[in-house]
């Protein structure tokens, strides 16, 4: 029963697609090659690495800032109608969101160049990402209606959502400039599979006293839902098309886009390090299998109007149908196939790290004297790292930020553990833990967030995990 509930909750969470995308544990966790994905300027000491295809990087994140499953479905003896009204309809606002993100690496590999200061990495990953803000006034209108709400403007702009599934082809290089600075750059090609976006809606619905009749209902709408790829998806679900048609869209057969990541690591002094990265500065041009819907216009209705003598002169007039036709003409619901552009949700990371404790020689080279600048030797790592991280992501209602404090502990070159405490809009009690283990050339990592919430996962507003397996060589033996 418990397993069933966990499964149902996870499915609901993932289907709702939450999105914070913060990978605060993976960030600057240099034992793990995937740390290059969140900062191409991460310092690495690998000679080469190869992720196990499909298993090298799997991550899921889901969050809800306004409500949890437990808030509504807890078996607490309370009337669900009271809970739904108080906690959903009246308890959430337009800043609350449901969001989600997943990434599955198909291929990920890296190698050191002839110039050992350069490290190249490349791969393909599949990503899904979506966010939906609470459509407060739509929900209020649907739950309570417009009766006895004279002059209350129901804001149609409360509909704000977007989502996408795409493949990302990437190639990056990190270059050690000197013993203090490592810079990184990653180019990306996006191959869009599915996309929907409806983020710039405007308008309102209001009921006022009528000029002629008792009431006037006014609809002022400028709503647009853009989508691409769903035509193919529909064909597949109705068995008019094959899954292959959908897969092709992920391999340059659909929408295309470009993007870039930047990052760096800089040693302020021997033990203090600052890092930063900016990811997914890019866009996708949606030009294939596009289907957009619009509802634009302005109409005011006071019911069927019969005004004599005009009504006598037009005795066969179908007043009701005329009213419908007039509204449809004033506020037409239309569709089109116009291409459109979406910008990727750009992410920004930054950290300040202090290293202390036992020094651990790099596996990648002779242990260096770290005061030497430049050259191909690698920096000695310290057993302990402590610091803070900042994360910001650009979302449809503006940037969302998260602040983390972390501690990383290395146990020789065999194992490293990182724990982080993070505050963001989803949780003020997010404690996460990540483990990287090295067994010969095999690297295995696992990390999970918001561990305190696992006491009652149904009450959690946020959950995430990442795991993967890599083969790493340091060029010795």
């Amino acid at each position, binding site marked *: 029963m418990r397993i069933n509930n966990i499964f149902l909750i996870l499915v609901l969470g993932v289907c709702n697609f939450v999105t914070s995308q913060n990978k605060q544990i993976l960030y600057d966790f240099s034992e793990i090659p995937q740390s290059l994905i969140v900062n191409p300027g991460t310092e690495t000491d690998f000679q080469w690495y190869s992720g196990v295809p499909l298993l090298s990087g799997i991550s899921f994140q889901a969050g809800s800032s306004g409500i949890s499953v437990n808030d*509504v479905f*807890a078996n607490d003896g309370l009337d669900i109608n009271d809970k739904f009204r108080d906690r959903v309809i009246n308890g959430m606002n337009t800043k609350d969101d449901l969001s989600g993100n997943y990434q599955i690496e198909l291929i990920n590999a890296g190698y050191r160049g002839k110039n050992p200061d350069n490290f190249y990495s490349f791969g393909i990953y599949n990503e899904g990402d979506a966010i939906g803000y609470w459509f407060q006034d739509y929900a209020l209108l649907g739950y309570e209606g417009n*009766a006895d709400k004279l002059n209350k403007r129901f804001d149609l702009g409360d509909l704000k959502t977007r989502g996408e599934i795409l493949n990302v082809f990437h190639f990056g290089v990190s270059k050690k400039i000197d013993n203090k600075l490592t810079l990184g750059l990653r180019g990306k090609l996006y191959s869009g599979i599915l996309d929907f976006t409806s983020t710039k809606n405007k308008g309102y619905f209001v*009921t006022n006293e009528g000029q002629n009749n*008792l009431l006037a209902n006014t609809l002022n709408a400028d709503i647009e839902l853009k989508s691409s790829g769903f035509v193919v998806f529909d064909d597949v679900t109705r068995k008019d098309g094959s899954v292959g048609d959908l897969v092709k869209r992920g391999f340059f057969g659909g929408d295309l886009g470009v993007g870039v990541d930047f990052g760096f690591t800089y040693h302020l002094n021997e033990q203090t390090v600052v890092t930063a990265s900016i990811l997914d500065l890019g866009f996708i041009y949606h030009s294939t299998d596009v289907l957009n819907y619009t509802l634009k216009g302005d109409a005011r209705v006071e019911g069927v109007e*019969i005004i004599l003598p005009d*009504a006598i002169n037009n005795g066969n007039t179908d007043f009701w149908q005329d009213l419908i036709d007039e509204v449809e003409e004033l506020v037409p619901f239309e569709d089109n196939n116009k291409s459109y552009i979406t910008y990727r949700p750009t992410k920004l990371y930054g950290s300040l790290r202090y290293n202390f404790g036992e020094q651990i020689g790099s596996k990648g080279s002779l242990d260096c004297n770290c005061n030497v600048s430049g050259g191909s030797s690698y920096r000695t790592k310290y057993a302990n790292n402590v610091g803070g991280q900042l994360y910001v992501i650009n979302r449809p209602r503006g940037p969302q930020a998260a602040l983390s404090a972390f501690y990383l502990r290395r146990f020789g070159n065999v194992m490293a553990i990182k724990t982080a405490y993070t505050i963001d809009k989803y949780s003020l009690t997010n404690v996460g833990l990540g483990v990287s283990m090295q067994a010969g050339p095999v690297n295995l990592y696992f990390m999970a967030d918001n*561990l305190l919430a*696992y006491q009652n996962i149904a009450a959690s507003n946020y959950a995430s995990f990442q795991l993967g397996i890599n083969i790493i060589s340091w060029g010795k033996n």
Partner: protein
Amino acid sequence: MFMGNSCVEEQDFGQYNELSVIPQFESSIIYIEATEEIINLATSAAFYTQDFDFNPFSENVFADRVVDGVITYELENTTSKPLQIILEFLDEADTILDTETFFIDETPSAVLKRDVAYGNTGKSLDIITNTSKIRVTANNLGDTSSISSQQEPLIVLKSSGKFSVRIK
């Protein structure tokens, strides 16, 4: 590792079946306006009679979900003669399902207000859900020569409906 040790307080997803969502919507329905001049020009007492299609009540999206409702009427007469307005609700076969009759004296007379409830303790909801036409008849109960001293004398019928609709 963590999932294996996770817990879930007992949830009851069956509660969803008990969730009830019944919003209440309101809108104007019919507005009728006639000048005294038209009334005086008519050759019979019934100076206006007309059937017109009115399908919103019988649309499945409404008829299958309506729980109860109230139709509010307001009748104002600034003409010099007493008048009778009859609204008949008809189904597709032109059978009269219900009749609402209004009498109003000549000016000066108070605005006539009437609320007619449907469902619960009111009239049968079937009247509303089967209505696909409305017949409007207006009768002059006075003379055809007098003219009100009011500026722009009119007979005006206003109406609105407020209905509860079960969404869930």
